[in-house]
């Protein structure tokens, strides 16, 4: 066990954990930030996506040791009350079905747009195709992504 300082959603936390424990489990089980979801644990679904230094990352693949000292944002820190442009578009289009994959979907989009405000269709496809949704909300995700892009480039 070792002690790590984490900066999550602009708050500082000190956690005792094995250095290779994935950030995913630290967030969920130690910090009670359960909006970040476990879907596969092997970087195959995107349910666990968070922002690390403004990049969308799979928190199941980032050890607590690597995460320490970085700026981490989870869905809970994306906005105070669900008013981030991505959340607003998701709300307007009514994307979710069960909702389980959606926080990961939104964080992936946020990460994508932080890097590039006007991604091409191919870039969107390449990124979003790595996030799975078993309920099949892709049709609406596509619509919502396009709405956000339009909104933030107004």
């Amino acid at each position, binding site marked *: 066990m070792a002690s790590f300082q984490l900066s999550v959603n602009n708050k500082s936390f000190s956690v005792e954990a094995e250095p290779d424990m994935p950030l995913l489990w630290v967030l969920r089980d130690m910090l009670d930030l*359960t909006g970040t979801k476990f879907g596969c644990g092997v970087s*195959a679904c995107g349910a666990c996506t968070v922002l690390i230094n403004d990049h969308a990352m799979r928190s199941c693949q980032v050890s607590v040791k690597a995460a320490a000292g970085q700026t981490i944002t989870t869905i809970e820190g994306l906005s105070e009350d669900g008013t981030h442009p991505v959340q607003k578009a998701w709300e307007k289009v009514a994307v979710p079905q*069960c909702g*389980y994959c*959606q926080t990961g979907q939104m964080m992936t989009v946020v990460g994508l747009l932080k890097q590039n405000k006007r991604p091409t269709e191919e870039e969107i496809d390449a990124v*979003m195709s790595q996030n799975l949704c*078993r309920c*099949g909300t*892709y049709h609406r995700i596509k619509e919502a992504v396009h709405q956000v892009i339009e909104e933030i480039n107004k």
Partner: protein
Amino acid sequence: MKKVSIDRRRFIKLSTLSGGGLMIGFMLPGLPSFGQTIPDCEFFQPNALIRISKNGEVTIFVARQEMGQGVNTSLPMIVADELEADWKKVKTEIAPYGSMANGAHDTGGSQSVLTDYTTLRKAGAVAKAMLVAAAAKQWNISPDKCAADNGTVVNTTNMKTISYGELVCVAATLPVPAEVTLKSPKDFKLIGKEQKKSNLKDILTGKAKFGIDLKVPGMVYASIERCPVLGGKLVSVNDSEAKEVAGFIKVVTYEGTGKPMHVRPGVAVIATSFWAAEQARDLLKIKWDVGQGYKANTVELFNTMAVRSKQPAAIEKFKKGTVNPIKIASQNSHIAEYKEPFLAHATMEPVNFIAQVKGDNCEMWGGLQLPDWTVNQVAADCGFKKENIKVNLAMIGGGFGRRLHFEFAIEAVKIAKQLDTAVKVIWNRKDDIRFQGYRPANYHRLEASWSKSGELQTWYHHVLSTSIAVMTDGPQTPDPSENQGGAMADFYYKVPNVKTGYTNVDFNINRGWLRSVEICMNSFPVESFIDEVARKMKKDPLAFRLSLLDGREMFLVGEGPGAMKQYPQRIANVLKLAAEKIGYDRPRKKNHFIGVATHSFIFAKSYAAHAIEIELLGPKNFRIKRVVAAIDCGIVINPDGLKNQMEGGLAFALQQALKGEITIQNGKVDQSGFHNYQLLRYNEMPPVEIYTIASEEEPGGVGEVGLPTVAPALCNALAAAGYRPRSLPLKNEGFSWG
């Protein structure tokens, strides 16, 4: 040959037919009896479904399990409409387990809306009548001078209003009316209008709690190594290395069970975190005795089915007129065989469950589609009195039938019995894909013949599959073909001579219900074969279908109170609508092809058709350009929820058509994650349009009706392009798509 009458889906038997369903006027214990004034009353709760508080907030309790299908919105809408509630002030909550009659929480078979529709309306109407009576009492006027509207009661003489919140204390003292009048559907205010999911905001902010997010004080975590072959036994386990992992608590073993759930024997690592449990689990050294089960092999299974399909079926399902076997197809007859693999549910929320045992008492937390059966079985398998088992239901991150099974609950309790704290068992993705009740593998032989003048004369369908009922009931099941039958008494095409039969081919893997179950299994062969026959007869596949449906009268399927109505005309109507919207009659672009398929989801009183347009990009390489779905599900409660289910159903069914497949070798499942059990991806979702037939029929269920016609419509489009896939998934047939 054994003869079996039409089967109904098991969950319908378990809930509605067993006298379950919701009860109105059902008083919660602890509330004062009527006629008494309630000092400091905080709320009015006329039944287990509705609570109205002094501030006007209306809480509607949802008994059916929310798992993405939208019951936490559609069911409250039905209540709120009759209640004349202000939808903005409506909150929804999971109805506590035990607050309703048996069967009320059972969720499956697309049954929630159609089963509860009238009961929910009555519950809302009862509350409204009491609020109106309360206002009348307050104003000292006759109740017929009052009207309810948008969370208030209006004095229709002077147009004064009083809010529901202000009436709760008086309403709570009034008797519950025995009779209420329901609204005329033309007066519906919420039903039929798009509403967003009631928990949308919580989902978007990460606040929504699924079963996997729950915590119980003192809880520890478990990860389980299960016997890789069904029917095996644990020989020994060495945990000396596992013990070294920080956070390791101990190893707990338990034996498997047989029917109905077939829990595999397991070795559970208990640890302070799931991560630690997983790490330690990897270090276990376990010896299993796999028994005879290692012989199971899907390649052999399909070979056996192919041979067996040519022989008479073991069980006759339906017979009309005379159908003689056709050995070799001629100019006036056709034979084709189809096959579909085992499939996994692969819900996004991995299976998980929390259990705690304190002496004779057991408490459980998690999502369950059939909680009553779970309680009964946990009582039987783990040695508890039913009344000592407490259930806390949780929201489910995708059901699709996965949680109609509950082997995970039995497992968790078996582990909790050996611990003095609560334990949360999480299945990792590998566990999820490798161990579950799979959609049965199935194989079909169809034969048809027609007269020289082109009239279809005979239709024969032999369904072979690995029975679900044999797993849940044991080999002595009264009907191994339950949930598996082919075209049966409900066969909708007009053919004078029809014969269908079923043969169970056993196989050592557990089977369960996957979204659309047998309807999906049978629509692919039936709707492909009718297309093949049309093409062989040189008829247009759409016109040919319509000639066998249009004008055909409603007929009853089955007998007595359980009889179901089959409407060939509604099957024709959705097909016509889908064909019209895709422009079936318009000239097509070069290399563009359209396929259609239609069906009735008779158990859910819904009808749907798909028309799919593809572009052939090269040999066996295609792109889906457009998908049009048409649905008739009677009165639509929430049009947005309906669309969601149809869009999602398309994605789910496309995965099955294109790439879904579970294979088994030496008794072990080959697939182990999303890398080899691939789901549909964002870039594979085609443009989709949903069209609904306006109807005043009672509402039907929509959770499954959007799947069955997807694979046949796609395969019929490929047939138009010169291919005729008869085996799913298409990836195995050399197809690629982009």
